[in-house]
């Protein structure tokens, strides 16, 4: 089990990216949601042993993973948000190298790399230099390398950036399978990435946890607080100033606006069933107004 206990990360002695955050990861997929600059990537780098926390503890199977990161690294699959590759190596050569770094036996590595390349739909490009890969293909190589050693803990940062819709669906299926008996921590600011697969949602803003629970619980929290109304285009700015708008669609003559409000915001507003995006935006809005 991976535990992040009272984690703080301060950059340059000033910028507090993570602020006393605690997270315990068991089997299942935890979707880490938060706006840009919320501290998600810092938290993931700490969980992946890449960055040392300024304060707090990272414990893996009871051991101190900050002082002795080896055991966690051997059990970890990590996909950073931005990463490079050796452009002159083929996908096969690159994964073979990484398998050797991880100490995977030759025969096992060869078979597993073949299967992983099929899994990420790159078997046809296995012998092409990575320098010729598109952004989406590289992202899939990143996913393959994260699964090389059959990790118990999987930490992925914005994994679907650059993937086309078909690949996103494939990736969601993969995550769903992986999370059956592994701990998966997935950071994103795209709610639909975690909507159908996450067993747990953690919303982070300003380096702190604002919600930690099941997706259904998050959605139930805003039941009765989501409304739709039609406004003339000229009045849209006023509505946006007054209320948090989660969606808007322009049609001929007016704009259909979906807003968050504890009470009916206008006589013609109709209540609608909230979804995960409404619930997430409500948490983010609450944390901003509280600050």
């Amino acid at each position, binding site marked *: 089990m991976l535990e992040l206990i009272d984690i703080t990360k301060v950059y340059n002695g000033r910028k507090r990216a993570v602020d006393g955050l605690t997270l315990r990861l068991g089997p299942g997929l935890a979707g880490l949601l938060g706006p840009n600059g919320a501290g998600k990537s810092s938290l993931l780098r700490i969980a992946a042993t890449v960055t040392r926390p300024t304060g707090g503890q990272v414990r893996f199977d009871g051991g101190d993973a900050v002082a002795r990161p080896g055991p966690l690294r051997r059990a970890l699959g990590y996909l950073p948000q931005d*990463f490079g590759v050796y452009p002159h190596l083929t996908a096969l050569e690159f994964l073979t190298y990484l398998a050797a770094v991880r100490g995977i036996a*030759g025969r096992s590595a060869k078979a597993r790399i073949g299967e992983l390349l099929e899994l990420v739909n790159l078997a046809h490009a296995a012998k092409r230099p990575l320098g010729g890969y598109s952004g989406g293909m590289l992202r899939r190589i990143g996913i393959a390398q994260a699964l090389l050693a059959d990790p118990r803990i999987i930490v992925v940062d914005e994994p679907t950036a650059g993937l086309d819709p078909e690949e996103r669906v*494939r990736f969601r299926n993969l995550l769903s399978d992986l999370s059956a008996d592994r701990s998966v921590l997935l950071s994103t600011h795209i709610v639909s990435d975690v909507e159908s697969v996450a067993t747990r949602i953690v919303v982070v803003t300003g380096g702190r946890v604002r919600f930690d629970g099941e997706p259904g619980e998050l959605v139930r929290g805003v039941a009765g607080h989501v409304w739709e109304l039609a406004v003339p285009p000229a009045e849209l700015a006023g509505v946006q100033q007054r209320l948090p708008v989660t969606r808007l669609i322009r049609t001929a003559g007016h704009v259909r606006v979906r807003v968050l409000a504890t009470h009916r915001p206008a006589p013609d507003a109709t209540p609608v069933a909230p979804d995960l995006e409404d619930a997430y935006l409500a948490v983010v809005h609450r944390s901003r107004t509280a600050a």
Partner: protein
Amino acid sequence: MNALGARRKGRGVSAFTALAMADFRERVRRPAYLVMLISAVCLGWLAVPPASTRWVVLDAGGARGLYTSGYVGLVTALTSALWLTLVGFYLVRDAVARDVRTGVGQLLAAGPLRTPVYLAGKFVSNLLVLGSMAGTMAVTALVLQLLRGESRAVDPLALLTPFVFLAVPMLAVTAAAALLFETTPVLRSGFGNVLWLFVWMAGAIGGQSASAPLGGIGVGQLAGTMPATADTFGLGLMYVDRPLRTFEWPGLPLDAGFVAERAAVTLIAVAVALLPALWFHRFDTAAATAAGIASTAGSAAARAAARSLPEPYTVYKGLPRTAAVAGPATGRLLAAEVRILLRGAPWWWWAGAALLGLAGLAAPPGPALALGWIWPVLLWSRLGTGRDAAAILAAYPAPRRRLLAEWAAGVLLAAATGALPAVRMLATGDGPGLAAWAAGALFVPALALALGTLTGAQRTFQAVYPALWYLVINDVAALDYMGALRSAGHPAGPPAPLVAAVALALFAVAFGVVRLRHARR
């Protein structure tokens, strides 16, 4: 000029200023800039040493000027003209590459900024960085004048005049050369870094000659102001037999011819900086690839091709079935490190290595080895520098094993490129030569690994190693790390165990830096 023309001109000037200042600010806000300024202070200290010292940078026939404002200005200006042209080139040679690396170049290319304006902005930024170092040396010179106490009269004009007429033109040449090398195919590679060392050597020696074009560095103007002839005048880092006697230097004589020559050198530098506008790719990656610019040869074109090719549709079939079984992987790790080191070497590198190998059959083992161990300088320079896959590898286990494998790959490269001389030494029973060879094979990649790890830049090794190699082939036996020089048939350099020990110490430095960075991650 019509209104539209005037508006365009105004926009160009403001873009030029904004670009130069943004680039300059970006550089001076990096910690490395502070190190550069500290280096400039050290260089100033070297130029104005205590009276008793025997290490000097200017020897005017066994004499030096009294430390007046004018003389400390002269000697520090000449020092910056001589040494900042070497070191400064490597320090500022990243202005365009940074824009490529960060993607800022793409943003600029999509705007109305004209290529000559871009180049002019980068040139001025280079010059500002070098100028700030020279300025630091000028301040150091003034402090040292007061500290040494030979003259208390402060004359800012006399102090700065040599900087304006001797240092600035040379710094302009350096700023322009760095830009020219960065924007020209072939020169922009590591080959350009090595080439500059030799260009600088030729310029530093030839530029002091009285017959140098446009006065060279400008030391010809000092004739008659010092008790030295062309034969007894020395500029560079020298050890003298006894402390230099002193004389009163009258100041830098300025005449129209000299000023015109200095202005001409500066104008030529400006022209050289703008010349690449004829071929600069303006961040068009496809053009860059065609010109052999991209480090990933053919990558832009290949990426475009990858995007245009439809991918086969496959159905998700579930997780891999094969377990990841732990097992021995050292051999595969080493093979992969060798592949990473060698992959991407162009065809001409392999052809050159083969030719040098053949030459090694004809030449004596020493010179053959020296030839064999300069050729892979660009490949060795990759060792220890920021790895392309660093973001992924940061969360991988066994960082020490990886570093060792990286070094071992460099050692194997040394062994391969020095194999023929080794075989010949083996055949002739040259045990000491073989021991020196083995120590050298450990030393060169260890040096690359240490410098790469410390600085994170390939160009450090690309500048340091050829200088070391050059000294060795010029018979400086004390530095012969490979046993190329012989005395009575035996290697004339330091003992092989000492070289091997230095190699291990350098590896330990690399290892220590990696550990320290990991601890402070």
